[in-house]
């Protein structure tokens, strides 16, 4: 895509954005039961 090799296309357009998605999901799921943490 865009003249890049297939691996580079994957790294730039899939892996990189997925890292950001993972960061967002971590924020949502890791703190679901967060009330007791705030008691620290």
């Amino acid at each position, binding site marked *: 895509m865009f*003249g890049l*090799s297939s691996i580079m296309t994957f790294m*730039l357009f899939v892996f990189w954005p997925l*890292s*950001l998605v993972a*960061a967002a999901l*971590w*924020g949502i799921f890791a*703190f679901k039961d967060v009330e007791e*943490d705030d008691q620290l």
Partner: protein
Amino acid sequence: MTLTIGIIYLLVILAIGLWSMRRQVDMNTFYLGGRSFGPWLIAFAVSSTTMSGFGFIGIPGLVYENGYPNMMIIIFATAGIFVSFLILAKPMRKITQKFGTLTIPDLLEIRYNSKAVRGIAALAILGGAIGYQMAQYKALGNMLQTVLGVDYKLALIIGVVILTFYVVAGGMVSAIWTDFLQMIIMVVGSLIVFIGGMNLVGGMSQLNSDLSNINPDLVQAYHTTGPIGIFAFISYFFIYVIGHQGQPHVVSKFYMIKKVSLLKWACIIAASTYAITGLLSFTGLYARVLVERGDMAVPPSADMVAPMFIEAYFPSVIAGLIFAAVMAAIMSTSEAFLLIASQSVVRDIYQQIIKKGEELSQKKELALSRWITFGIIAFTFVISLNPPDLVGWLGNASWGIFAASLVPVLSIGILWKRATRIAAICSSFLGLVFSVGLYILSVNDIYTPALDTGAVAFIISAVSFVGISLVTKPETNLIFDENTDEKSA
């Protein structure tokens, strides 16, 4: 105009230093800002400290020479930020609340009940921090030389004087607020250059088509015949995805957030702002194509690629803004390393090992912290005037030194109860010795492993950590005891 913007930026930094100075009370406020920061400040601090002068100047230079394979550093480091939050952020913040830890070696001593692990970690941090700082000072001198139009040594003096003032006076409070300002400038500047440059070269497809005509390896994820081959790709994964957790100047920021729950926003903010600033690495590709077309002069060195490109193609207001952003990147990483190096001397080596944990008065703590910070600046500055080659190379290897010495004992140890003290001592020691030793052998052309020296050292350290833990006697530890009473913060 470039000069004006540069000077305005430096004055703002000084003002922040002055404001922060009044908030200094003791070692806790100097090194951790009193654990009072919200998610935006912490997130921006994590991303701006990860994006250093190397990221803004060095990587575009490497990308200019080697193409997309060197951009993998940015892509992997983004993932590394996520992994660090995933594994370390919550446990570290809870541990600092429970045990009052100020530094990474603090945490390691509590985890393994061992001053030896503290000592080795403190030495690794001190050595890597001073080495990396020297690379930052050189970049600072080069940038200010361009912006202010003075010679290198004077530029270095001016930069270091300003750095000294805002770090020694304001400590971590100053550092976090300047990081915040710096990241805003860096994000805006990077977007302008990325979009403007892409228009200039005629879009993504045109850019990659031109690169491919110069050398097909430039549009690969790793070279088939060039120097950044598959082993470099694998090494980058270890050093930047996994190794990010060992970067003490970054992960220590997890101690500083106001409360644990605020970390949830900090991760996505940090990762996305870092990724945006990482787009600046495209300047290396733009410059390569423009030089090939004859539209841009050949840069005399790799370090000059980004500054030359920006100066040639963007109005001076934008150039001034970008240069301020680059100075920001260099200074934010420099002060992060400075504080971490100073901490390792004052807190880890002097107070905890030499003075055996004796409580110092607040006034004495603060004074000592400031004096040692000043001393490290002076020492690093003197060497930076005429840096010996070997020490400069060590600066470049510091990511690997931190990854090998600290990641297994910190990241695995914080989650795995079965890890033992002996394993931690051996692992961190081997990590330190191999990362420094292999690097020295490599730069002197005595022996160069296929994988990057830091990656090799990390693998040795991690394998020995797990292996020795499994064959030594299991231990209990306070960190995993739910009933341990917390100290006040």
